[in-house]
């Protein structure tokens, strides 16, 4: 009996995991974005070790100083070191947005996976509920919740999670609905596989690429949201070094201490741009674009 020998493998399409490595479609901009994100993550991890001063200590004798070597980003009108505040604020915003995103992605994934596979009234009900949440623009929902919960770190965390669960769940659902009609799922069913096996072993891998991109986007929006809430004064409360809050506080005195406004504003912008460029690169590598 002749056994067919493996043909020329180079002419064949690469399997999905291999495509991940062949990141030819990514732009240089994506690499820049990823580097920015890495730098911010390092700053967040090292945090207090990098900051020369306390984030909250007010040294009135050194108030309103322009950037110098001892105060890289200058000081604000209360004499706090802006560089230290920005560095320490990085940990705050990244952990808050990161944790909120992680929770939203996890809950969105599990609920989306489960409900879309089971289908029926359970799915109908859950997604009606999600749709109703989505009928409120994210910031509106956030403000409504904060307006009743009262502003605090935990409230912000809760708000991010609630606002982004439905979006993640929808992305998961769209992939699951497509995947569950595939013949390999039918084959698994004919083998009598259990529901958890089908969900996590057969379907989940197909969901992951889209989920990775969505998670990166959600992370960027979460940072956006935290900063916006801080700016509006309903998020993290003073004297915490929240970037949005710092911008809002420095605004009134922009002619006196413009650096106290520009540096945190630049930090927010740079971080979000970095994540967006990275997400875009991820999308191209995973070939999810259009």
């Amino acid at each position, binding site marked *: 009996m*002749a056994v067919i020998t493996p043909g*020329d493998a*180079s*002419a064949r399409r690469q399997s999905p995991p291999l495509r991940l490595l062949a990141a030819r479609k990514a732009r240089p901009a994506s690499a820049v974005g990823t580097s920015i994100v890495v730098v911010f993550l390092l700053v967040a991890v090292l945090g207090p070790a990098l900051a020369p001063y306390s984030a909250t200590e007010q040294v009135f004798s050194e108030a309103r100083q322009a950037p110098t070597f001892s105060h890289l980003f200058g000081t604000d009108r209360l004499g706090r070191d802006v560089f230290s505040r920005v560095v320490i604020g990085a940990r705050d915003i990244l952990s808050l947005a990161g944790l909120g995103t992680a929770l939203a992605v996890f809950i969105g994934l599990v609920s989306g996976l489960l409900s879309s596979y089971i289908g029926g009234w359970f799915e109908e009900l859950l997604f009606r509920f999600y749709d109703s949440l989505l009928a409120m623009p994210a910031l509106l929902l956030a403000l409504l919740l904060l307006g009743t919960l009262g502003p605090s770190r935990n409230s912000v965390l809760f708000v991010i999670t609630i606002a982004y669960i439905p979006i993640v769940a929808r992305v998961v659902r769209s992939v699951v609905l497509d995947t569950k009609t595939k*013949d390999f799922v039918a084959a*698994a069913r004919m083998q009598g*596989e259990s529901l958890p096996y089908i969900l996590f072993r057969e379907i989940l891998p197909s969901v992951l690429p889209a989920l990775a991109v969505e998670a990166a986007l959600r992370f960027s929006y979460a940072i956006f949201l935290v900063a916006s809430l801080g700016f509006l004064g309903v998020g993290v409360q003073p004297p915490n070094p929240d970037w949005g809050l710092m911008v809002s506080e420095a605004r009134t005195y922009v002619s006196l201490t413009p650096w106290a406004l520009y540096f945190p504003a630049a930090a927010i912008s740079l971080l979000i741009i970095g994540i967006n460029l990275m997400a875009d690169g991820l999308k191209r590598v995973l070939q999810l674009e259009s």
Partner: protein
Amino acid sequence: MTTAALKISDLNVSYQQEGRWFDALRGVSLQIAPGQTYGLVGESGSGKSTLALSVIRFLSENGRVRSGKIELAGRDVMSLTDAELREFWRKCVKLVPQNPLPSLNPSLRIGRQLREAIYPPLNAAGANLKVLELLESVGMADPKRIARAYPHQLSGGMQQRVVIAMALASEPDLLILDEPTTNLDVTTEATILDLIRDLIKDRNTAVLYVSHSLGVVAQICDRVAVLYGGELVEDADVLKLYRKPLHPYTQGLLDSVPRIGQDKTKLQLRPIPGQIPGAELPSGCIFAPRCPLAIEICRSERPKLELPWAGRRVRCHRWQEIADNQADPRQPLKFVTASEVPNAEVETVLKLSEVKKRFAVQRSLSQVLRQEAAKQVRAVDGIDLSIGRGKTLGLVGESGSGKSTLARCIVGLVPRSEGDISLLDIPLARTLSARDKTVLRSLQMVLQSPDEALNPYLRVDQTLRRPLQRLAGLKRQELDQAVVNLLKAVKLSPSYAERLPGQLSGGEKQRVSIARAFASQPDLLLFDESVSALDVSVQAAIVNLLSELQQEHQSSYLFISHDLSVVSYLADEIAVMYLGVITEIGKTQDVLKPPYHPYTEALLSAIPLIDPEAAQEHIRLVGEVPSPVNLPTGCRFHTRCPRFLGKICGTTEPPWQEDESGKRINCHIPLSELKTLQKQAFNFDHEEV
């Protein structure tokens, strides 16, 4: 030969992929005379579509014509400027693509889309008249309505007619038909082929007909070229090519397709081993690694395209020996011919009685308010059949006949609405979850699309381990060996265990699918169009494999396909389905002989036979398959029946009639009368080993 309309000389085309260039066509030359229909056949990867796109200068972004010359009506196509190219597209060359629906703009009316194609341009009133004229010329009964319609409102066959009309809106020098009937049902394909034949008959247009189907080409072309791996390996007058192929690849293609009437007990298919060359070409003849006649020179020296005699070209070192019958270009036979299972005392494996499946159609709000009952799609509407141990039942019918739904009801992927199914006398539950493991083990299905049947993220061994572990009940330490055994059984090397589906070819994927289904050694296997998506040479290998595995395991098959030639080759019995019911059922050789059910007769006479000289009855079905929501009363087939008897067909359900061989036909016309009315749909006395 008169001056050629199309002349291609030494054409080389390459594609760039991931920074590397791959040759798609190497040194292809051909000529088409005005009024000639020139067939271009080859399997996927042969470069036939690339050739067609090069001629119209419509290669994708990453494709380049490296060298060579294309002349159409005396003009050098490659040197046209943009403006000239538009002019050239507008009047000299037209393309009828494979899929009509995506080729039509979804948001423009048919009339407007046709008007744009008219050349020479006419004034508004003239153009409108011309549109109606064009639509009428492609056999549209109500051109005014069609002109106002949007593409999605037409059936597939009608859409293809529109696209053909569009191609004829100018008087092109060259008409390229790129697999124009590939996605159509066989009965629709037959009417479209009739139409094409009619339309080109009295035009002086050169036609390039690109197809993977040897049957279609045999039926429609004057001359045929065979492409393999980007090279033209043979071309000849159609009769001569089919009578005496000079290239072993051509011979291999012809031997890969079962002729109707040949069955597995009398003849084996001769698949071509191996697969088409990849990026690294063999140093000699590119077909040498798969060729039964390859000798030293074939492996070292690239053969030239030679001209044995006028009007014939072949690229083979040994054509002379083949022509003189000194060398046999056929692939050797690989296994013992299947033996016929004796009919008496065969154990019944599967038994269906009155199986029905209905899907509810959602009611609109107004229907709910008017308290109308929900409409139902009666996809499967009362099926009785049984399959014996080691036997194969073939199930044929056009799309929408309910054959796939029936298969899904049997395996439990879709719960049936009514009726009983039993496997080895054990009644089967309606849903998969209610069936126990012994049932799952003895009943498996191989699914249709090789691309979707395997999880792209799981390695082959991961895919095969599950059924071995869960259904066959093997222990962990036995699994590795069992996976190797399974791979060997489907003729794949054990190294495939490590691969991901993305690293497999279509045929290899289907082998893994089959291995998975066989893992639990089931008593009954269902195949739902399992070989339809494959190239013919690969398909032949899989068909042989199935027949061999059946011999070995004595498993029973339910083989579903729209392809009657494959079904009739594999099946001991054939059931013909139409709109959810069986219209005819009997032993294969009996179903292929009159008296036929009129539907079977139409199916058989619609098959594009792989023989340009075959005499075939010309019976065509009119109209479309009716919607299963509003089934025709009486006999379901009466709206399209070419042998419509009269009022009774529309009012009364036809009776079952049985002939002396045990074949049963569901028709009002008495068998004796059918017998006198009908001739053999075609001739199939083949003398073969």
